């Protein structure tokens, strides 16, 4: 089980860093978060990574599904899925393998941004607690976006469609919290409860809330489960 998952993850990870899109996405992410970090630090003269977290989380909304749109749509289009699905591997191993590879890529992207806090430490005396929890938070929401993206990638053989569907789901889950204000008290609570954006800011302030952890992990589990089911149903289509 673990062996097959790692074999698939290893292949995907190599594909990520053997092809331009991952570099492009990483580059865009670094430019945007670098600007956000620099601008916030200079304007407010703070030694926090709030600028990076705010800009980074927002642009991950768009970059997450871009990282994962390839995973199944391309296999479907190229027909390689036929060989993969007739190999003695379980659907869950295929899904987890591909998901791990995308998580690995996300980690690489975040690892490069570690020079932001190092810069802070060079020029000032930052509070490391919120920085650590902030990184945990941005990794978790990234992981959520990737699980949604991988699900949408199983729905179609067209990467663009996979991307659009993936970002649509992500955007709804993000902005539904903003709609809570106009939705009235009862519905508003539900909206806030299911919105990703209501759980994220606390991480930046150094708070790791159990509710938030459970929320993120459940969303990931739900979408990975849906991915496996979607893969199963494609055999019957």
């Amino acid at each position: 089980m673990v062996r097959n998952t790692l074999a698939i993850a290893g292949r995907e990870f190599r594909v990520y860093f053997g092809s331009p899109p991952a570099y492009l996405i990483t580059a865009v992410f670094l430019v945007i978060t670098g600007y956000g970090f620099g601008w916030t630090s200079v304007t407010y003269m703070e030694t926090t990574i709030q600028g990076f977290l705010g800009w980074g989380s927002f642009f991950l909304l768009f970059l997450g599904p871009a990282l994962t749109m390839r995973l199944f749509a391309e296999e479907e289009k190229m027909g390689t899925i036929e060989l993969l699905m007739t190999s003695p591997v379980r659907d869950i191993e295929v899904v987890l393998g591909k998901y791990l590879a995308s998580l690995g890529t996300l980690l690489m992207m975040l690892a490069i941004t570690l020079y932001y806090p190092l810069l802070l430490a060079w020029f000032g005396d930052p509070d490391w607690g919120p920085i650590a929890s902030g990184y945990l938070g941005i990794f978790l929401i990234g992981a959520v976006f990737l699980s949604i993206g991988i699900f949408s990638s199983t729905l179609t053989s067209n990467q663009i469609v996979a991307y659009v569907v993936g970002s649509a789901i992500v955007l709804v889950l993000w902005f539904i919290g903003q709609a809570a204000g106009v939705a009235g008290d009862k519905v508003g609570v539900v909206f806030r409860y299911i919105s990703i954006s209501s759980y994220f800011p606390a991480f930046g302030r150094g708070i790791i809330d159990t509710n938030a952890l459970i929320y993120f992990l459940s969303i990931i589990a739900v979408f990975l489960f849906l991915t496996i089911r979607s893969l199963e149903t494609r055999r019957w289509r």
Partner: protein
Amino acid sequence: MIEAENLTKYYGTFLAIDDVSFEVGKGEIVGFLGPNGAGKTTTMRILSGFMPPTSGTARVAGHDIHSQSLEARKCIGYLPETVPIYKDMTVEGFLRFYGKIRGMDKRRRESRIQEVMQLCRIEGYARTYIHKLSKGYRQLVGVSQAILHEPDVLILDEPTIGIDPRQVVQIRQLIKDLGQEHTVIISTHILAEVSMICERIMIMDHGKIMAVDSAENLSQRLKGAQKIEIEVKGPAESIASRLRDVKGVFEVTIEGSGDQRKFAVECAPGEDIRDELASAVVESGFSLLGLKSYEMSVEDIFLKLTNREEN
């Protein structure tokens, strides 16, 4: 080795295969022959575990393809029609990946990779990225992937399509050799190919198996007429009319142009009238340049069988 029972598959309302049953024994090479859309690929996809049948069942090496799918898949080497190989990997990397997910341990995997690359004569491209390879070489990579883990059963869907003649010969020989130890099913619509490689032929059309037999028996069974080709120098029309007068000749058709023509003579089966034909030509004062007799080919049988269904 392979037992298929009443396999039926609907795509929506379209009936792709209809109540197909057959058995393939160990070490046998069986060819699926049929026009496009006959249900060959569908049958192979069901056997390989890529998709389930609407009804019916099949066992591969004793494992039910549905309830013991993983075990069945372990015993199969499969080359789908589209040659699905990751273009962004090297030949060696691709084979290594498939060795890994088929559970081969490292030592066996590495030695088998070298072996199959030599067998398919692609060892010179071990570190070449697959997107740089021509279609023929990709097909060979596909074949080497299928035999990598020494499966009991090989399912090859159109293994020689779209590649150059030299490689076709190479792949056919390879399949023949593999048939010594493995059970092989290949599909093709190239008729010469099945009669060359396969011990048994299954002719499929409209989702049904129309006939199952060896190539020789099939042509024996369906022998309707015999064909003789004669090459004669002289005026075409008078030669043709002279040939028509020979006893046992059904029909003469003139092929080609100029004063050196070929004539296709169809005659009753079982009798050898080459003698009479030759004398007729020579006695009339024309020069006989060539004479050749043809058996009904698998091709003719195939066309007969598949046309009969439409009529």
